[in-house]
Structure formats: structure tokens, C-alpha cells
């Protein structure tokens, strides 16, 4: 029995994502003046230990902690009769201490109990891992078990994976004290141990991620018993897939499914498991042959960083004969050369035998180096930087990493881009009609075999090639455009060996056109209390259909509308033995109203 004392400082910090985005968060630091961490520091104890957590609040909100799954009774707090916290809180600048005894093994959350709808997604959560007392003693029957002898939880390697999400807009709003409607909470980053892929596969404690010290990649030799302990600290459910692996579920919410001699063995096999918010699953399997095995959310949309694959909630098991004992040897002989169509090509010599990937850094002029790319595969010796400008000097350096950390940097290489072939210039674009944009440019190139024309529809989207034309052309008509849409273009010349840099970019918005009128309006059902109308179905350029009716010599009145995907209207507001006239028109936000359909007459029966 020991007393595990942990001081946690609740404070503000910054987390980084692989696409270069940084957002503020609230987290727990493990030392005075230290950086807060996402997730909070892992608290490790043995069954029987007394856990004493002192929370020091450096935020301007009340903060408290709750300990789901522990034999611990929280003290809910009311202020002026209003519920404010699930447990005794620390006021801003204040301190509160929580003490309880760890009574059962498992992986547990600790998380904020004050304004948890904001504070938990802001980052005020962490994990506690409680082991059986004999976990470290080779002679003890509980040695290297998660839940004790006879619980099917004997492991060689255990790894805690804490799943969560970040909505960057939410973090920015809450941190700056702006209001945020929680109904608008929509994550754009998904995390394992506080990082998004590929940061997840970087080692622990890397210098570029000061507030996200925990990697989540697992290294193991073949034939080892691997225990993955998945804990969902987020607010979404995640269907976690072990790619290429079928694991045995040995515990749910830290209740072992084989609970010792005499009890039934209720463990079962899964390759994917849906882990609800707040739940935990312990998954055990034997590592297979050497290679990479992705551990990831099977909701593939969570494999993105701000909408871009790959990213998000993915990490990896690397099965290898021997774990690296040291950081990799640094790469050498870095060289860079311009290939304008593709950007700048880097080559280096990989001198390491134990690296897991590399980080490429770049700077222009006298600026600081910035991370350009994470290369998440071993053995790479080249990279192409496709995001370069003409007549600009770039300097690069590369370093490798493995589970022990980063290598030193390679030599630096510098290169200045130039007009390999004097590229097209003076690109101009004109919207001739709603469905045609004409492009023209100046041909500065010699030996151009042709031009590649690329288009995108918004500043934030990627360019896509839409056409190639011969080298003697200086104009192109794009008739694949839609009305009332802004398009951007750029043009590039190429010959048999190389390509020019891109032309200037031009942008133009096509005019709106009114939608076409609905056709063939007819009644398909007529009774004394219902008339069903139908018309021809074509939803291009329409947002909705508006239905109008009159009876006798009265004016037409709008009686309803249906969205563009409907082609029926049910008119329940009819009387028997009455003559009605109907007509329908379409409406689009950009093009206004269409003309009317044909008019029909309906005579309802008595």
C-alpha cells in the first residue's frame, strides 16, 4: 500500500494538429509552471493504494474532478440553489484535494465535474490505470495481468489509448470567453492520447508537441500478448477497428469478463468494437508476423484532420523483432532540385536501420524552419514538395524518428525556383454564359508540348485538372461550369521533360439562371378530402417547388412548397364537390422563380 500523490494544475495551453492548425485548450499540468497536457497526466496506482489528487485551479472557471468507476462518493455543489458541480470544486486560484482508495484494477477516466459540457471537450480529462498489487513481481500470480490471475488478462505489452475529439471552433470560442451553443459542437479533429494521426505515431515527449506528450504507437515482437486498453473520453461513440487482428474482449468498463476461478469465461472475440462515450474496453491479442497494423476508428470520417484524409483517430502497431534501443542515426547527403511541375524534389541518404519515419522541415529566406511534412513510413529517401512558388529560395532539413525520439538533423540543402520554361502568363477568364467560361493566356514558353488547365470552385479547395490543350493554343472554353458559381483557374505548360510553374490564378463567377418550369402537372388521386399532384422530376437548378391553387374566379394562392427532391404534393385542405385549379413553379436561391407549369383543373367528388 502506498499513497500516490498527484498535483494537477488546471490551466490554458495550446495543442497542435498535423495540418499546422493550433488551438487553445484547457488541461492539467503535472508541475507548477509546466505545460498543461492533453490528455491529463496518467495516474498509475496499485489496488489498495491511496490516491490523493490536489487540483490547483489556474483557470477563471470553477473546476472539479470526478472519478467514475471508483469507490468514491462525490459531493455535488449548489451555489445559490443552482447546481454547479458534480463534486467539490476549486475556485479560480483555489485548491481542492480529493482522496480515495483504489479498490479494483482497470483503466478509468478522471474528468471535470464542473460545466463538464464545456470543460471535458476543452481537455480537462485524463486516465488512471490501476493494476493488481502483484503486477510487477514475477513470482506473483498477478504478474503482468491487468485484472489478476485467472482473468484472461496476462499481457506482455499494455497500451492505454484514450479516444476523444476536438471542435477547433468550440475551443477558440470557449477559450476567448465567447458564447458557444453546444448544439453546434461538430468535431473537426479526432484524437488518440491527445494527438491526431500522424502525430499519434510520433514518439512520446517530442519537442514539437509540448502539450501532447503521449504517442500511441505500439511496438512489439511477434507472438507477444498485446493488451490494448481503449478508453473513450470524448462525446461521440467510436467503432474501433484493429486492422488485420481479431482480439479478445477481456474487460468492459474495467469489469473483467473472466472474473477468476469458478466464474464463467465470458470473454469474446471482435475485430471492431463500438466504444460508447465514457466506456472502456480491454482488448487482448497475440501479435502476428512483422509488419504494420493500423488501429483506427472504423468511422472513416474520423480519419481526417479538418476534412482531409489521412488523419484523425488512427495509430499503429508495429510488429518488429527488436524494439529500437536508441534514436535513429540522422539522415545525410540531403539534396534538393527543382522539378517545377512537381515542385522541389528532395533526396537524402537513410543511414538508420531503426527509424519509423521522418520529418521534413522548410524555411524561406531568414525565417525559422517550419514542419512541412511527416513521412510515416520507414526507409524513405525522397520527398516532393509540391507547394512552391517561382523565384523563391527554399532551405530544407530532415530528421528521422523512432519510439526513442528524433535523430539529429541532416545537412541543409537550399534551392531557388526559377521559370524552367517561361510559363503561361496573363491568364484571364470571362464568364460568357451561365454555363461557359472562356480562358486566355500569353504564351511565353518555347518547346511547350501542351498546357494543363486546372480549376477549383473555392479558395479552400484543391485544384483539379479539367483539360489539356496543345502547345500552340492560348485559349480554352470551359463548358462544364454551373450557373452562379465562382471558379478559379490556373494553367501550366509542359514539354517532354519538364513543366512550367503555374500561371497567375484568375477567378470569375458565372451568372445565375432561373430554373426551368415544372412540366406535366397532373392529379394522380382525387377524393373528397385529398388531392395528390405530381409533376415531372428534374432537380437541377432548383431548391424547391411552390404549389398554388385557386377555386373558381379567385386569385391563385400559394398553398405549400416541397423541396427539390419531391415530385408529389398532398393537398389535404380540399373540400368535396369543388372545382380547384392548380399550378406549380420552381424556385432557386440563386436564379429566382421559374415560369409556371401547365394549369390543371380538379373536380373533387362529393
Amino acid at each position: 500500500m502506498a499513497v500516490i500523490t498527484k498535483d494537477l494544475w488546471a490551466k490554458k495551453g495550446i495543442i497542435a494538429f498535423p495540418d499546422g492548425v493550433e488551438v487553445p485548450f484547457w488541461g492539467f499540468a503535472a508541475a507548477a509552471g509546466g505545460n498543461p497536457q492533453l490528455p491529463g497526466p496518467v495516474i498509475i496506482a496499485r489496488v489498495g493504494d491511496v490516491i490523493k489528487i490536489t487540483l490547483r485551479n489556474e483557470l477563471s472557471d470553477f473546476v472539479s474532478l470526478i472519478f467514475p468507476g471508483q469507490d468514491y462518493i462525490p459531493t455535488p455543489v449548489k451555489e445559490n440553489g443552482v447546481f454547479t458541480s458534480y463534486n467539490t470544486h476549486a475556485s479560480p486560484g483555489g485548491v481542492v484535494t480529493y482522496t480515495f482508495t483504489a479498490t479494483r484494477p482497470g483503466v478509468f477516466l478522471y474528468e471535470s465535474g464542473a460545466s463538464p459540457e464545456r470543460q471535458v471537450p476543452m481537455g480537462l480529462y485524463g486516465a488512471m490505470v490501476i493494476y493488481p498489487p502483484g503486477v510487477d513481481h514475477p513470482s506473483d500470480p498477478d504478474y503482468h495481468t491487468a485484472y489478476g490471475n485467472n482473468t484472461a488478462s496476462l499481457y506482455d505489452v499494455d497500451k492505454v489509448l484514450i479516444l476523444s475529439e476536438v471542435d477547433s471552433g468550440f475551443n477558440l470560442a470557449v477559450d476567448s470567453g465567447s458564447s458557444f451553443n453546444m448544439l453546434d459542437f461538430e468535431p473537426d479533429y479526432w484524437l488518440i492520447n491527445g494527438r491526431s494521426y500522424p502525430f499519434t505515431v510520433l514518439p512520446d515527449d517530442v519537442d514539437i508537441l509540448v502539450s501532447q506528450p503521449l504517442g500511441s504507437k505500439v511496438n512489439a515482437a511477434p507472438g507477444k500478448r498485446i493488451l490494448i486498453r481503449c478508453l473513450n473520453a470524448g462525446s461521440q461513440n467510436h467503432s474501433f477497428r484493429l486492422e488485420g487482428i481479431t482480439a479478445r474482449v477481456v474487460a468492459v468498463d474495467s469489469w473483467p469478463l473472466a472474473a477468476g476461478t469458478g466464474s464463467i469465461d465470458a470473454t469474446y472475440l471482435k475485430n471492431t468494437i463500438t466504444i460508447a462515450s465514457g466506456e472502456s474496453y480491454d482488448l487482448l491479442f497475440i501479435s502476428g508476423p512483422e509488419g504494420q497494423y493500423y488501429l483506427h476508428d472504423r468511422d472513416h470520417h474520423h480519419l481526417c484532420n479538418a476534412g482531409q484524409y489521412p488523419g484523425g483517430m488512427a495509430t499503429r502497431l508495429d510488429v518488429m523483432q527488436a524494439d529500437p534501443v536508441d534514436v535513429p542515426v540522422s539522415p545525410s547527403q540531403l539534396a534538393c532540385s527543382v522539378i517545377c511541375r512537381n515542385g522541389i524534389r528532395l533526396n537524402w541518404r537513410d543511414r538508420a536501420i531503426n527509424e519509423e519515419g521522418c520529418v521534413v522541415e522548410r524555411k524561406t529566406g531568414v525565417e525559422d524552419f517550419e514542419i512541412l511534412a511527416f513521412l510515416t513510413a520507414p526507409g524513405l529517401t525522397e520527398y516532393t514538395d509540391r507547394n512552391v512558388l517561382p523565384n523563391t529560395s527554399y532551405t530544407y532539413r530532415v530528421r528521422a524518428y523512432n519510439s526513442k525520439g528524433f535523430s539529429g538533423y541532416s545537412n541543409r540543402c537550399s534551392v531557388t525556383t526559377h521559370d524552367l520554361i517561361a510559363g503561361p502568363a496573363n491568364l484571364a477568364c470571362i464568364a460568357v454564359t451561365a454555363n461557359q467560361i472562356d480562358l486566355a493566356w500569353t504564351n511565353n514558353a518555347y518547346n511547350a508540348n501542351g498546357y494543363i488547365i486546372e480549376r477549383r470552385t473555392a479558395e479552400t479547395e484543391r485544384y483539379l485538372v479539367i483539360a489539356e490543350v496543345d502547345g500552340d493554343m492560348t485559349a480554352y472554353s470551359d463548358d462544364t461550369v454551373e450557373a452562379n458559381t465562382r471558379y478559379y483557374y490556373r494553367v501550366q505548360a509542359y514539354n517532354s521533360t519538364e513543366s512550367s510553374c503555374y500561371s497567375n490564378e484568375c477567378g470569375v463567377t458565372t451568372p445565375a439562371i432561373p430554373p426551368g418550369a415544372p412540366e406535366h402537372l397532373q392529379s394522380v388521386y382525387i377524393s373528397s378530402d385529398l388531392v395528390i399532384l405530381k409533376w415531372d422530376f428534374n432537380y437541377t437548378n432548383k431548391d424547391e417547388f411552390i404549389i398554388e391553387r385557386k377555386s373558381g374566379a379567385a386569385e391563385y394562392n400559394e398553398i405549400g412548397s416541397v423541396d427539390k427532391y419531391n415530385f408529389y404534393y398532398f393537398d389535404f385542405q380540399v373540400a368535396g364537390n369543388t372545382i380547384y385549379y392548380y399550378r406549380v413553379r420552381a424556385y432557386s436561391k440563386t436564379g429566382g422563380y421559374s415560369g409556371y407549369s401547365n394549369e390543371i383543373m380538379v373536380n373533387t367528388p362529393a
Partner: protein
Amino acid sequence: MPTIDLWAVDGYISTPDGKSIYIWGFTDKAGGSAQLPGPTIIIKRQDPPARTMVTVNLTNSLPEPVSILFPGQSEVRVNGNPVQPQYQNGSLISLTNHCLPGETITYTFYAENSGTFLYESGTNPHKQVPMGLYGAIIVRPQDYMPDHTGYKTAYGTGTGTEFDREYLLVVGEIDPDLHQAVELGKPYDTRVYKPRYWTMNGRCANDTMLPDNVDHLPNQPHGAMIMLEPGEKVLIRYAGAGVENHPLHPHGNHTRLVGMDGRLLQNRTLSNTTDLSYKRFTVLTGAGQTYDQIYTWTGLGFEPVTNQIPTVIPNLRNMAIGHTGMTMWSGSPYLGVKGELPSGMVSYNEVGEYHFMLHSHAEPEITNWGAFPGGLMTMIAVYPNGTLERHHGMLPVESHGL
């Protein structure tokens, strides 16, 4: 040893509200169109010690790399080597080896476990799986003999998984904006993913209730109507191919879950067998997961002479369905009896069978773009004993031969 040739191609599917949606998918017919879901692969395991090696040749006719993951299968290899994730310029593109446009690669695996499995793209999966590059695999036990009592089982004789009929329901979602963006070559941001259609075997209700291979749904060949007789053991296999979780349940009776992800819910030691199967009303069909269940409709034994329904039967008008004058109702609350219907009502009921729902209890998912009925819904039809033809709910022993 079974060999399956698959082509990754494009095509169109139809929804009951009249839309045509562009998909990417698999076909097992050279020159064929994409099918939703991909062709069901049914394999019968060899008698041990022989191992059942399955070969899948994938030819890619799409404009970007495509791959196939085989979760739950053993020793998946490509061209003889263990599969590995693939990177482009150091960045992950595929969770397994992929096939470049215009090329063919060969996957092999050993079918070591009986049950229901998915196969699905591992390349740009945020786009390719929702676009339709998925399908199901059924592995039958080596002692599977459909005409022998006790040997028509999901997991082998003696595993408590005998069945009389079986139905596979592969569920997914469709966000039409994704499909349109891919069709037009426009970028798509997964942050705006919002399904408007939910599919069972690639169809939305009410198309789910149509038979297999109807002419107007050439790329959605599989219906999802469950037809059975009272007391029969019906094996229902759910496979979650979408990216969301769907709470599915049949009305009438609960199901007994006997296996998940192609693994029998049973633990065996030399001396002991622990049956872990359990009954559920609603099964949360999780993304990328499968659920094998036995369903038996027992009913309450009401019949018009000696065991009458003890409550007042509502008037006929309140039992009619819709304004359009069509119903599946027999006109009688008693199984096997056809009764009087309101005048003008046309009944498609055949022999006094019951119809009731199997659906997603996330009710917005039983619509087509918000309009009920639609989406993740089908019907269970209970036929009076001796009236349902044998071919209903009969999947072949093997799909692609030896």
C-alpha cells in the same frame, strides 16, 4: 479452392423517390456495372486439416487506387506477401495493398472461421467505402449440409446455430452530396457528411421489400424481405458497412445473438462449453461489424375458434393503410385467415400471412430524404405453416464454386 474475380467500377443505383445516384462498387461480372453492396461471397470451409484458401482477383477500373480489406480473415496476402499499408510521398493512402487504375492484383486469405464478414476498400476509405466499395462474405462450416437435420448451421453442428432459412442484411448510408461530388470530380469535405438515404442490401425501403433481381434495380440485386413460417429458426446476419451505427430490431420476437464479427459466441475448454449467446430486442449494428442472430417467430396462438383475440378488434377503416387503396393486410387478425377489407381496398396478401417491420429504431433513418416510409426498414412476413415455398431464405452453399 474458391476464386472470385472482382472489378472495381462505377454505376448508378435508384432510390424509391426517383433518384439516380452515382456509386463506386464491385461487380463479379466482366464489363458489369457497380453493384450495391458488392457481390456476396459465400464459401464453405474444407474439412481439416485442409485449409480453405480463398483467392480474390481485383481489377481496378476506377480513376484512383482501390484495395480490399478482409477483416476477420486469416493470413491475408497480396501476390503471396502479407498485406501492408501503402504510402504515397510518405503519407498514408491505403490500409492494405492497393491496385492501381487499370491493373489487377490477387489477394488470398484463409477462411479459418465460420460466420459473416465484411470486405471493404482500405484506400481513401472516407470516400471509397461510403461510395459503395463494400460487400459481405459468408463462411460456412465444413460440416454444412443444408439437407441434413442438425447440419444446416451457421457455426457447425453442435454449436446451437441450426437454422431453417437465412437472410443477410448489409446496411449502409448515402450522402448524395458525396456521390455527386465524386461524379463531377469535385472535392468533398467529410465534415459536411450528412446521410439522406439509408440502405439495406443497397436498397431503401420500400424497395427493400421487393424480390431479388427485379428489372428496374439492376445494380441492387438483393431484396431484404424476411419470409418465414412460425417456429422456424431464421438466421439473420446484420453487417454494418456504413460509417454510422444503426439500432436494428425486428418486431414480433427477440433475436438470439450467436456470433459477432465471424466469431461464435461460445467459449470451449476441454471439459466445458460456455454458451455466451444472448437475446436482444435491438442490436446496435456498429460500423464495420457483423451480428449473426437466430430469430424464431412464436406468435400467441390466437385462432378464430378456440382462442380468440381477447380485445375488441378495431373497425376496418382504422386498419386500412394509406389513401392509395393498397394493403398487405389480410383483412383478419388471425394468421392464415383472409377477411373482409374496406370496399375499394386491394390486398396483396397471399394466404393470410402477417407483415410487420424490421427496422432501424433511429427513426430518421426510416425515411428517404426525410419522407417516411423509407430507408432502413423492411418487412417480416409470417406465412401460415406449410404455405411458404422452400426457396425463400435459401442462400447457396457456395457462391463462386471451386
